[in-house]
C-alpha cells in the first residue's frame, strides 16, 4: 500500500513547521518556511477535493443554465442551452477548471441579464445567488 498523498503532504507540512522552522527561529527564513508549510497543508486539502468541487460547480451551473435557457431570450438562451448540454470531457483538474471557467463567464453574463429584468427576474436572481453561495461554501480554504 502506498502512502495517501494528502496524508504525506500534511505530514511534511508539520515537519517543516514543527521541526525545521524552529532551527531558523527569528530569521526571515522562519516566516517563509512556515508559509510553505501552510501551503503544503492547503495542497493536502485541495488535492483531495479539487475534482469533486469542480464537478459540483459545473453540474450546479449546468442545472441553472437549463432552467434559465427557457426564461431568457435570443442568443443568450441558445448559449445557455448549449452549455447545459456540454459533457465533461476529462476529469483532469486542469480540464475541469477550464470547463468551470467557461461556465462562470456565462454565469456572469446571465446574472447581468437577470439584474436588468426588473421584478420579473427576481426568482432567477435568487436562483443565481444560490449557485454563488454554494460555490463560495465549497471553496472555503481554512487552516483550522
Amino acid at each position, binding site marked *: 500500500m502506498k502512502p495517501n498523498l494528502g496524508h504525506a503532504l500534511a505530514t511534511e507540512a508539520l515537519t517543516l513547521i514543527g521541526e525545521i522552522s524552529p532551527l531558523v527561529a527569528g530569521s*526571515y527564513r522562519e*516566516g517563509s518556511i512556515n508559509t510553505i508549510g501552510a*501551503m503544503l497543508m492547503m495542497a493536502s486539502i485541495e488535492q483531495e477535493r479539487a475534482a469533486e468541487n469542480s464537478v459540483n460547480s459545473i453540474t450546479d451551473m449546468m442545472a441553472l443554465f437549463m432552467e434559465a435557457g427557457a426564461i431568457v431570450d435570443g442568443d443568450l438562451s441558445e448559449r445557455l442551452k448549449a452549455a447545459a448540454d456540454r459533457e465533461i470531457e476529462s476529469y483532469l483538474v486542469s480540464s475541469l*477548471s477550464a470547463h468551470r471557467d467557461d461556465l462562470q463567464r456565462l454565469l*456572469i453574463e446571465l*446574472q447581468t441579464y437577470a439584474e436588468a429584468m426588473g421584478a420579473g427576474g427576481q426568482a432567477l*436572481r435568487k436562483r443565481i445567488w444560490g449557485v454563488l453561495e454554494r460555490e463560495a461554501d465549497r471553496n*472555503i480554504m481554512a487552516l483550522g
Partner: protein
Amino acid sequence: MNETALQEISDQLVRYLKHVMPEASGFEVSDLARIHGGASRETYRLKLSYATEGRERVRGLILRRDPVGSLIDTDRRLEFTAYAGFHGTQVPVPAALFIEEDLKWMERPFFIMERIDDCEVASPFQPSPYDDFGSRMGEQFFSILGSIAAQDVEATGLRELVEVPGLEACWDKELSHWEKVIDDDELEPQPIARAAIRYLRRNPPPPAQRLSVVHGDYRTGNFLYDSEGTIKGILDWEMVHIGDPMEDFGWATNPLWAHGTPEKVGGMCSLQDAIGYWETASGLKFDKQAYEWWLIFNCVKGLGIWISSSKEYADGENHDPVLALAGWICTSAHNKILVELLKDKEG
C-alpha cells in the same frame, strides 16, 4: 539571503550614510537581517553605530528597499511622506529619516526609518492575539483611525503626490481602480466580485463627509504594540491616498480581520464601541448607508489585492509564498463574506 549579500547591503548603507550625514563618523552596521513585513518591499532591520558631536550613538533602523522590477513605482515616496507627515501627531509612526531614488547607492530606490523596538505584530491568521487587552487595544486602534481621518491633509504633504477626488467622486475613483486591477490580473472568472461591482455601481454611497488621508491598509497585523497592549506604531502606508475616511473604517472592520471572532471587529471590540471611538477622534458622524457600501467595496478591494498577488506569484515575478497563500485563503474568504453581504439584497 546569504552573508555576502547582507555584507554588500551593509557596505552600501555605510557609503550612503556617510554621504547624507557628513557631520557624523565611525559608521558601523550590525545585526542586519531581512524581516517579513510589507510584502511589496524588501525590509531589513539593523543597528547603526556612529559618532556625532563628540558622542557615540546607537540607533535601530529599518531599511525598505524596492523589489526588483518596480523601478518606476512611485509609491515609496508616498509611503515615506505619510510616515513623515504623521510623525509627532496623535498617530504613532516611526520617524522617516532618508529617502533615496538615485540607483547608484543600492541599485534600487529605498528609504530608511526609525525602528520601534520591543513590540509585536499580530498575524491576521492568529486566533485571538489580543486576548488580555483586546478592548483597550480596540479603543486605541479606532481612536488612531479617527485621528488619521481628522488630520489636516495639507499638513501631511500628500496632496502634491496623489490625485485628489471631489467629495462625491471618492467612491468611483477607488472602485474603478480596483475593478481595473481585477480586469488586468484575474486568472479565472470572478462571478462574485463582478456581481458586487455591479451592485456598488447601482447603489453609490453618499458623498464623503470630508476628504481625509486614507491609510489604505489599516487593519490588525499592520501595527506594532508592546507587552502592555499599547499601540506604538502604525505601519504599511504603501496604499495611502486621499479619499473618504469611511473607506479605512470599512477595511479595519472587515470580517476577514476578526481573528475568528465575528462579534469583535479586528478581534478587539464591538462594532458599536469602534464607531464611538472613531466618531470621537474624527469629529465625523458614522453613516450606516455609507458604511455598508464601503464594507462591500472593501471585499472587492481585498479580492483585487489577492487576485493581483496570485497573478504576481503565478507569473513568477515574485516567489514569496505568502502571495500564493493569500491568494488561496483570502480570496475564498472574501468571496464568502461578499455572498453573505449581498445575497439578501440582490437575490
